[in-house]
């Protein structure tokens, strides 16, 4: 084994351990008391078409946070449509306590104005946020969200962005309560929202 192979093996082992620890932590968290996932998530400030928006602006409400981009033809609209389906099932007094945020992972193409038009199509209560590359990277890191622009010289302006497709359900105290995976039905969003509203 040469030096670089040893290094790689060490890195691989380390990553494997991280995955195991995270996995066990996740499972324990699932069964434990409802305290939420304090190590994931947290406060941020990003730009909307109407000015800066902070997560803490919605303290007292349940917030759904999804990461995506408007150029996304399928995965993001599918997730947002499922959220819309869920929001439409809520009673007006429940809906008044829920906010949905789409954070762009494509700040080069997604201007605050474009995002605002885009999210309004799904539900009037949704807000689209973007920022500088550094700001987006910081928020993604906080939420352990991965994203990467696809390097394809032929794609040109039509490049796509790989990204995690998890929706975060944030409690009234701004702490992450649960995760909803891509492919979830409107009903699954309804139950995740209602559980968070009860806390």
């Amino acid at each position, binding site marked *: 084994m040469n030096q670089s192979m040893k290094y790689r093996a060490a890195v691989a082992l380390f990553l494997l351990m991280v995955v195991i620890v995270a996995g066990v932590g996740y499972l324990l968290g699932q069964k434990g008391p409802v305290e939420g996932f304090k190590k994931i998530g947290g406060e941020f400030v990003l730009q909307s078409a109407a000015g800066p928006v902070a997560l803490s602006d919605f303290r007292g409400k349940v917030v759904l946070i999804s990461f995506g981009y*408007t*150029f*996304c*033809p*399928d*995965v993001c*609209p*599918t997730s947002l*449509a*499922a*959220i*819309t*389906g*869920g929001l439409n099932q809520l009673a007006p007094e429940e809906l008044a306590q829920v906010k949905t945020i789409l954070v762009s992972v494509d700040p080069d*193409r997604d201007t605050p104005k*474009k995002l605002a*038009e*885009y*999210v*309004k*199509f*799904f539900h009037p209560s949704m807000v689209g946020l973007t920022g500088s590359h550094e700001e987006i990277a910081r928020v993604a890191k906080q939420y352990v969200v*991965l*994203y*990467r622009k*696809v390097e394809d010289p032929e794609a040109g*302006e*039509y490049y*796509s962005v*790989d*990204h*995690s*497709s998890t929706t975060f359900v944030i409690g009234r105290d701004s702490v992450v309560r649960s995760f909803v995976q*891509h*492919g*979830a*039905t*409107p009903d699954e969003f309804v139950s995740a929202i209602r559980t968070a509203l009860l806390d």
Partner: protein
Amino acid sequence: MFRVKNVLTLLIFSATAAMGLPAHAGNAADEVVINHAYVRATPPGAQTSAAFMVLENSGEVDHALVAASSGLGKKVEFHNHIMEEGMMKMRQVMKIELPAGTHVTLEPGGLHVMFMGLNQRPEMGDTVALTLTFADGSETTITIPVKMIKGMKKHG
């Protein structure tokens, strides 16, 4: 006279058979049946949309889709989604195989026809013309409705 009639019958029979042959030989455009096709309605300002459908190869020969074109987008491609490294990745597929006697489903979260650089916004009630080219060079143009997607159904 008897003979002449037999020859005539034979001739007519052969001619009919010959005429019927091309259809049986398997032109993809004739043999691939397309059902449940629709284009996704997009939000204002969106630069992309997607079409979904069920393609059924009713023939006895394998076929494949190799290209698509439409006035809806400047670039039309086939794409697939793969979940990898914790990310949803969308990648171009050069060919969609349509084995004989099977059906292939293009659906949200999976294979789709992707329209990029939209020339107009597909809205509910609109129709979109889409031309599909098969590996054997045959083509079919379908006119499909634009629909809203109410959230995805779970797959198993």
